[in-house]
């Protein structure tokens, strides 16, 4: 059956799958011209890129055809381990009088939150297990043990970040509107504090993710409606209320029962344990995410270059825009297999446990087409990220790279006027035709 995209102008590629919470990969379209995207053309020809896209599509299809019981068993095993770690962790932190159990409890609770956020939450909310039709792993219903509301996170992550990966002005995850991590980002005075700000973000990462999902910047720029913004705020407040109530009020209140046996400080110990467990998770998720996207050799792209891209170009952009982290099997589980960030960005909707096997094909294709495949140990990637933050925190000498220099302002004004002119011209041609 013929299926066409709704835009009056046809996109070069059709969306892959179209479950409601995973619109990627949609292509970027320039309504004014049919000029193909230039992404990847310095590496290979347009035809080679198309071929490359077909080969990767075949890899994806092969995995999709093989999905079944073993993938279902795997995610249920992870969920079982997560629940066990959570319950044992909560029992452990109820023994503040016995430090080994107390500390083990904190670690287990942190581990449970990591498993919930990474291998379960992140991946389930990508729709990787929707085919199971089990409400427990349904991407549309899943809510994670994290300050960010699932719905708004899915929009910002699954749709915006995974579609417009590393495109300046479109992917809000480049530096999270807080840090300067790439030379093509405009520099502002606050970026002098890149490293300390990144450290604070690491400690309170779940709050950062929540704030990012409210999209205050988008609202102030007039890109989202007031109703949309207020809905986001409302959902964020509801989620904060639930998370804070659970970790910082309800469980410490249950800890009151320990007071006669342990002392007045028992609820405080439980509160502190919850704070530490959340911070453990925050640090871990921050490290994995930053090392997956911000090491020095990861590329970013300009919107003009990515417009009208074909499937191969879309894949090319994902490969160059991500970096893997090498490690052993348990490490990969704790990262939610996001240590295979490249494979995740190529195929966000296949069960993440398949990324190691897919990586073999991706590496082979990268070799065949002479493409870089960025990977390295966590320590190496981390040093690289810190180096980037330090380097791009310094004020650039080029005035066009400084956000509020007169030169940049003039450039932005010129671009705005140009866009307005073209839009008027287009509407006039439509009227006359």
């Amino acid at each position, binding site marked *: *059956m013929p*299926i066409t995209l709704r835009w009056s102008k046809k996109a070069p590629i059709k969306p892959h799958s179209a479950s409601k919470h995973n619109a990627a990969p949609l292509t970027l379209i320039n309504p004014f011209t049919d000029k193909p995207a230039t992404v990847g053309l310095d590496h290979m020809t347009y035809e080679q890129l198309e071929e490359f896209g077909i080969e990767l599509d075949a890899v994806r299809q092969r995995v999709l055809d093989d999905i079944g019981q073993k993938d*279902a068993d795997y995610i249920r095993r992870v969920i079982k381990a997560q629940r066990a770690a959570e319950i044992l962790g909560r029992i452990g932190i109820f023994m503040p009088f016995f430090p080994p159990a107390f500390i083990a409890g904190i670690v287990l609770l942190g581990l449970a939150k990591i498993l919930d956020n990474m291998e379960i939450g992140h991946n389930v909310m990508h729709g990787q297990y929707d085919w199971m039709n089990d409400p427990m792993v349904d991407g549309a219903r899943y809510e994670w043990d994290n300050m960010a509301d699932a719905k708004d996170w899915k929009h910002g992550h699954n749709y915006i970040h995974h579609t417009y990966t590393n495109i300046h002005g479109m992917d809000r995850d480049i530096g999270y509107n807080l840090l300067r991590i790439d030379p093509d980002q405009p520099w502002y005075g606050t970026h002098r504090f890149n490293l300390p700000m990144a450290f604070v973000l690491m400690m309170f990462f779940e709050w950062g993710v929540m704030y990012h999902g409210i999209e205050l910047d988008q609202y102030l720029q007039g890109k989202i409606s007031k109703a949309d913004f207020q809905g986001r705020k409302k959902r964020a407040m509801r989620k904060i209320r639930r998370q804070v109530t659970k970790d910082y009020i309800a469980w410490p209140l249950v800890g009151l029962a320990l007071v006669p046996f342990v002392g007045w400080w028992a609820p405080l110990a439980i509160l502190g344990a919850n704070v530490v467990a959340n911070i453990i998770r925050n640090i871990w998720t921050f490290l994995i995410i930053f090392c997956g996207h911000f090491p020095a050799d990861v590329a970013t792209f300009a919107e003009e270059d990515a417009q009208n891209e074909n499937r191969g170009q879309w894949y090319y952009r994902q490969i160059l825009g991500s970096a893997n982290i090498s490690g052993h099997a348990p490490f990969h589980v704790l990262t939610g297999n996001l240590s295979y960030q490249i494979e995740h960005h190529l195929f966000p909707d296949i069960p993440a446990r398949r990324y190691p096997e897919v990586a073999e094909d991706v590496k082979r294709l990268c070799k065949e087409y002479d493409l870089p495949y960025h990977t390295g140990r966590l320590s190496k990637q981390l040093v690289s990220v810190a180096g980037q933050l330090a380097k791009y925190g310094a004020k650039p000498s080029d005035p066009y790279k400084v956000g509020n220099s007169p030169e940049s302002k003039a450039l932005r004004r010129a671009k705005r006027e140009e866009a307005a002119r073209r839009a008027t011209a287009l509407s006039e041609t439509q009227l006359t035709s």
Partner: protein
Amino acid sequence: MGIIRSALTSRVVRSLTSPNSIDDYLQQVHPMLAAENVRARVVEVRRETGEASTVVMRTNGVWKGFLPGQHVQFGVEVDGTRRIRVFSVSSARPAKGRSRTFSVSVKAHPDGYVSQFLHKELTPGTIVYLSQAEGEFVLPREVPSSLLLVSGGSGVTPVMSMLRTLRATGHSGDVTFLHYARSRDDEMFTDELDEIAGSTSMRVVRVYTRQPTPDAELQGRFHVDHLKHLGIDPVDTLTYVCGPAGLIATVRDTYGELGAAEQLRQEYFKVPSVDVDAADATGTLVFDTTLVEAPNTGATILEQAEAAGLQPDFGCRMGVCNTCAVKKNSGAVRHVVSGEISADTDETIKICVQVPVGDVNIAL
């Protein structure tokens, strides 16, 4: 157990387990252990005919019981995927108290994935995922003195539950059971129906439409003469009919003509197949969220969405469970069962039983 269950589902416990529910933890201990989710273990799978089976199950304590004639959403996992279908309860309602054992009876459709699985592969001990019993096709609290139960094919199941319940409770009124099957071999519950016919005051009449028995009281498909022959006056006989769309349509028309429409209760056992060649297979179906569009083929919106590569949620695929409900932004749709056309903008529809009429825009 009731107090424990309400404690486990209380807001206090919820605030401690948020964002999960208590069942997310309990089911890790044992799949049957739950405070809110109905689960059951298959006790027995009994062959009724070459094509039909009865599945006897024992539920967990969450099950609230059923009324004769109700159905249940039945989920079973095959190759990692939970498949959910709606089946009618066929067993008798226990006389008093809540019983955790009940059965559904299912005819295997040639391309019915779940019904084929039930018939051929389901084994005792399997855990199945259920809903509470639902449906309005039930006997009233006070069963009137004159009752007619009509069924066709595997539409016998909810009616069988009624018949068995009436028998078990020693109901003394006039009950006539009129059943249409293709042949005696194709009929479910044959031995039990023979026995009921012989040992109770209930009148059991079976019509085999393809291979009639020589001494049959009635022959052919349902006709108003069948009622006359049985001496039934529809106007003062509460009547339940369940079966294929054709049977229901005939009975409904007959009752309408005789001015007895109020006495009729009806239930489809499957969604009538859609006439794909119908004139309303025009226009374009637009899936607004995913920006996909396809020419309207005249199939249900759910089927068309799947054909277009989308993966909408669905459950029963017969307009019962509401899992597939989504917003229709604009356009007219026709309900495949009632034929009702609705053209409101921004209304929520069940896409498994709605066919687009002309251009339709759906929030999928």
